[in-house]
């Protein structure tokens, strides 16, 4: 018995060591995230002022604010939403409510996985080839938005489909048994129930679009523009591209402005992330089924 209990102690000690090791790995994974957030807030806060977010850059971007970049990112996000939200939700409705279990459906799923995996810079190439050159949109908000829209499509489709599928089948049966058509059932029963989940997915998809640089690099991003874009056919400044420009292309750029820009981009993106999380959380706690 003594040997078996000492063996047990040994095994438990091994478990303890293992748990500590994995805990350390987790700590090493999580700590940099907190450091990154904390450091950017700490360094960026001094540059953050009303002028910084409401004025245009001046003096070769070394003074003033970053308003055109903020507005540009908002335009691009809205433009992306206009194309990707209806298409993405439509595709998700098809996959969840209509698609038969056959080869074509499987092909659609493979295509979605593939779209999700295409490198962002390849989307940039594609956008340049088709929207900027072939369709002759030029480098514009329109071309960038469409490129970003195709890139965000897989996120929106996958999350929306999941939200639609989580609506219990009995809801649909009741609606149909009361004489509702398939579309009436989807519009009046399934979509409203799945709405929070859909919103979460849409926001997460757009968050990705808002933070991307490579797809807009050759499709619509501008180095510097003295005034705000007037139409979807204009090129635009954008926060991620602006951060890239001022941290690599402009020598002697004051470091506070760089950190300030990073902070504004972070607030923009994490604000969307937080909104999505809150919607998901509220919907989960309110759900009756």
């Amino acid at each position, binding site marked *: 018995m003594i040997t078996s209990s000492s063996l047990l102690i040994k095994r438990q000690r091994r478990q303890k060591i293992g*748990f500590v090791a994995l805990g350390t790995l987790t700590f090493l*994974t999580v700590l940099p995230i907190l450091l990154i957030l904390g450091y950017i807030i700490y360094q960026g806060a001094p540059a953050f002022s009303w002028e910084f977010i409401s004025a245009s850059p001046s003096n070769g971007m070394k003074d003033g604010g970053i308003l055109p970049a903020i507005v540009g990112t908002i335009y691009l996000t809205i433009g992306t939403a206009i194309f990707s939200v209806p298409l993405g939700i439509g595709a998700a*409705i098809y996959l969840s409510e209509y698609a038969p279990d056959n080869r074509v459906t499987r092909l659609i799923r493979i295509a979605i996985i593939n779209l999700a995996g295409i490198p*962002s*810079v*390849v989307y*940039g*190439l*594609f956008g340049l080839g088709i929207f900027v050159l072939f369709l002759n949109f030029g480098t514009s908000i329109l071309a960038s938005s469409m490129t970003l829209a195709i890139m965000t499509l897989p996120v929106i489709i996958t999350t929306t489909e999941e939200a639609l599928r989580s609506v219990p089948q009995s809801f649909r049966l009741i609606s149909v048994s009361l004489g509702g058509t398939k579309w009436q059932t989807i519009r009046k029963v399934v979509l409203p129930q799945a709405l929070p989940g859909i919103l979460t997915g849409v926001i997460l998809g757009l968050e990705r679009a808002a933070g991307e640089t490579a797809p807009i690099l050759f499709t619509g991003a501008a180095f510097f523009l003295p005034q705000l874009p007037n139409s979807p056919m204009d090129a635009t400044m954008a926060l991620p591209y602006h951060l890239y420009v001022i941290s690599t292309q402009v020598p002697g750029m004051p470091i506070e402005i760089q950190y300030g820009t990073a902070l504004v981009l*972070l607030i923009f993106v994490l604000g969307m992330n937080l909104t999505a999380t809150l919607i998901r959380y509220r919907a989960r706690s309110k759900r009756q089924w």
Partner: protein
Amino acid sequence: MNKTSAKIDFFITVLIKVSGYSAIFFVVIIFYFLLSQGLPALNNVPLSSLFSDRWYPIENYFGLLPLISGSVIVTIAATLIAVPMGVGTAIFIGEIVPRWVRELLKPLIEILAGLPSVVLGFLGIVVLSPMLRNTLNLPTGLSAFTGALLLAAISLPTIVSVAEDALDAVPKSYRDAALALGATRWETIWTVTLPAAQSGVLTAVMLGVARSIGETMTVMMVTGNAPVLLDSLGVFFSPVRTMTATIAAEMGEVATGSDHYNVLFFIGIVLFIITLIVNVTASSVVYRRGQKRSEKLLS
């Protein structure tokens, strides 16, 4: 059902069907455009030039090998860092800690997934690379190693969340059986849970790799952008350049339709095919696993 609502139903069904098929359409048209702009490179640039070790487009040297080796070295190094950390973290938050700790850590890791890559690249330039240069006493901090560290951070959230899902999908009864036989929780994790989840964990690793190969802005900003062929391990601490960074850095300045333009699209084709293979294989691994489980349930 009256006539108008039948008509609306029909019309909407068509619209929904079209959007459902749109994913296939986009993949096809993306590939078509890459081919139409990239394949002329094979015609106009001699193969011996494409497979040489010199990338110097101004003088018509289009050797892809330095770019491929640049991509490969940062991706492998990033994967070697990210896999133990990612799978370890997934095991820790999925199997070991209480639920509330898990609910606290998961959103935090999702924040990392949401960080724009340009922000990580920026921090790489202003914080990480000076730090590495000083501590390791290197001539420059902009190196493959710096890129690999940041790529690891970028692929970590993918690896953690997919691996954790895989662990989560292992039936509780498996663990209970092992524990009832007297195994410790640690032994249960290694001998039962992890082997049962291995295909999902493999998927996590592959998706992480795909994420690393395709990442653009971060590597462009921190790897120093020197197209050098990897011939010794010392290169690891010197500047390299990846395929993605080359496209991003040079596409803005080339003349449409020039050889250089076509070669950059050709690199796009290579990236498209690599990520296609990795992603489709990764997802088919999951698919097989799902099938196996349903077979088990039926028997």
